[in-house]
């Protein structure tokens, strides 16, 4: 008992001394403008201290836990690149067996989620573990030097999908992960973007209410991999949403239950232009024009599929979602 009181103190103190509980502390080694660092902080902040985290190999692990330091204030374990979902399943089963209710998180990048860890993720969702899986989607293997993943958008440049005389960047479409996840009929699946912090918080809290698997894919710009200035991360992330290339949606038991409408959809070029990874699409090349049209068509398709075009000005749309105004409605 004395042991318990002793250990409760620091957390109680933390709660008093900080405006919010920080699961991920400042002082880690992430690059300037890292979307993932911001997203991970928002997720853990919203969840509070009663969580256990299984983390896939990747930037998040590397920049937060260079031994003998750690930026985590929550129990955290990194095992391998491809087994965060399975390790989290084991943690959840263990806590269930012990009669504990701490929430289990699994964190992965798009490589560990869309590709190499996909099988373990699918297994976890199918078995219905009470785990929130968060994918920090920066659309390539950033930790190893920017190679394409199945999340890399069509036509984007990476070191393994370089544009050249014969190719215009990545040749395949970004994997529609959220549809595949939703097809598991899990209680809750959503996309989010670091450009909308209160939306992330809302979705994390929604996921925490659920007894069962939940999945959130958070669009997280990588200034290094995308080739934009670090100070533009939030703006670039917002443009991805506003042009329709990264739709913000919620699905419950596979059915679409929420979208963030676009007040005035922007052309995809607004989003692509600030990023070096799409620079080859803005050269005087007929193929570039074709690819831009292709990307615009993909955005239009998303807008149609999810009905993103708001019919009237809406305080909850992509332009108003995170603005706070007196007497107004906040997104979350």
């Amino acid at each position, binding site marked *: 008992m004395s042991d*318990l009181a002793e*250990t*409760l103190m620091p*957390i109680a103190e933390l709660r008093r001394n900080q405006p919010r509980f920080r699961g991920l502390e400042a002082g880690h080694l992430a690059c300037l403008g890292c979307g993932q660092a911001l997203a991970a902080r928002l997720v853990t902040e919203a969840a509070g*201290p*009663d*969580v*256990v985290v*299984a983390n896939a190999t990747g930037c998040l*692990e*590397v920049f*937060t*836990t*260079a*031994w*003998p330091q*750690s930026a*985590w*204030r*929550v*129990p*955290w*374990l*990194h*095992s*391998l690149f*491809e*087994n965060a979902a*399975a*390790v*989290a*399943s*084991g*943690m*959840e*089963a*263990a*806590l*269930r*067996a*012990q009669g504990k209710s*701490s929430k289990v998180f699994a964190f992965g990048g798009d490589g560990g989620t869309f590709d190499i860890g996909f*099988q*373990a993720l*699918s*297994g976890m969702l*199918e*078995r219905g573990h009470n785990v929130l899986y968060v994918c920090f989607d920066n659309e390539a293997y950033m930790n190893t030097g920017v190679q394409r993943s199945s999340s890399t958008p069509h036509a984007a440049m990476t070191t393994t999908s370089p544009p050249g005389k014969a190719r215009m960047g990545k040749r395949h479409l970004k994997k529609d992960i959220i549809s595949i996840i939703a097809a598991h009929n899990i209680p809750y699946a959503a996309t989010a973007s670091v450009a909308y912090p209160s939306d992330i918080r809302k979705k994390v809290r929604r996921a925490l209410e659920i007894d069962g698997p939940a999945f959130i894919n958070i669009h997280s710009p990588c200034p290094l991999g995308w080739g934009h200035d670090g100070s533009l991360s939030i703006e670039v992330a917002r443009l991805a949403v506003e042009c329709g290339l990264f739709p913000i949606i919620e699905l419950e038991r596979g059915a679409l239950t929420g979208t963030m409408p676009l007040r005035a959809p922007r052309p995809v070029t607004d989003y692509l232009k600030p990023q070096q990874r799409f620079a080859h699409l803005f050269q005087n090349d007929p193929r570039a024009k074709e690819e831009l049209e292709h990307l615009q068509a993909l955005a239009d398709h998303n807008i149609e599929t999810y009905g993103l075009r708001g019919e009237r000005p809406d305080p909850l749309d992509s332009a108003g979602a995170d603005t706070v105004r007196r007497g107004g409605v906040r997104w979350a």
Partner: protein
Amino acid sequence: MLQALEGSQAIAQAVALCRPQVVAAYPITPQTHIVEGLARLIADGKLQCELVSVESEFSAASVALGAVAAGSRAYTASASQGILLMSEVLYNIAGLRVPLVMTCANRAVSAPLSIWNDQQDSMAVRDAGWIQLYCADNQEAVDTTVQAYRIAERTELPVMVCVDGFTLTHTLEPLEIPSQDQVDAFLPPFHFARTLDPLHPISSGTLVSPEYYTEARHAHHQALLRAKDEIVAADSDWAVLTGRVSGGLLEVDGPDDARVAILTLGSVFGTLLDAREEYPQLGSVKLIKLRAFRPFPIEALQQVCMGLSDVIVLERALSPGSGGIVGAEVRAALTELSAAPQVHNFAVGLGGRDVPLDIYPRLLAAIRSASPVRFAILDVELDKLTVEDR
């Protein structure tokens, strides 16, 4: 009370007596009956446990890892391709110093596909940093399973209990299942010092630079070396409780004055014991049962091999392009002796090939030649091969 039980069923009962809280496994022959047995016990309410039926061996090991890290006693079992599929996680479990127990129902590795027994699967992961204990019969499999939990939890090292597929797993033997009271007296409730607990947050499995990695590996190596004492202690304490010994690190059977010894792992030991009785005219021969392969009991092995003229290493793990895996290690250990015995290395019984009693006279005949047999596969029938493959 003796009861006739299939090896797998006996192992399942032994695991259940250890009160695991999480069992995660994927079916693979010849391991399946073990997990089926556990699933039956759980379904019947005889074992309170979370059974996580995963989508692959990779996840089986991962789930077990997560479960132990979160503070629960866990169990998994696999074989052959399954061991290889989970091999990355096996290294990880050991490196994270997670005290997990698993059964490896030893089976050959394809290609060509074989579901039958040899020991290349567990030998392929011998350097993962696990304790590896090999069982000669099903009574040992039961006793070693219980001991494994104590060894694992005291050393914070994972333990792989290796039992020969089919030869043991699918064979009925009269054996004694310990009582729950005996197991409870031997195995305290699981407490993992580095549990992931929101009240005491820790970070585990962090990035380690070259500045610290060497130290981590050194610590792991030392832990395995220290584990030798725990393996011996577990066996002798279990003997006090049940009257049964499994051999500690290794076991020797035979007259002290014997100049020849045959060393083996697993169920072939029983075959050799019978064979020695069958051929008493062939003189006195020691039989050495290597129970712990990791940590490798160098000192104990040197002790029992002192004064021998010949040691025959009979094993079921082939390292293609090199020879026998166990033979090479035994030879290396014995070269340190002043009058080192000659080491003869034979692979036998690969992919479930029968190991008959007359292996014994053949072995003893084979070492009568002038030079030691560095390595040979004993029972190859060359006429089954094309000329260029012979």
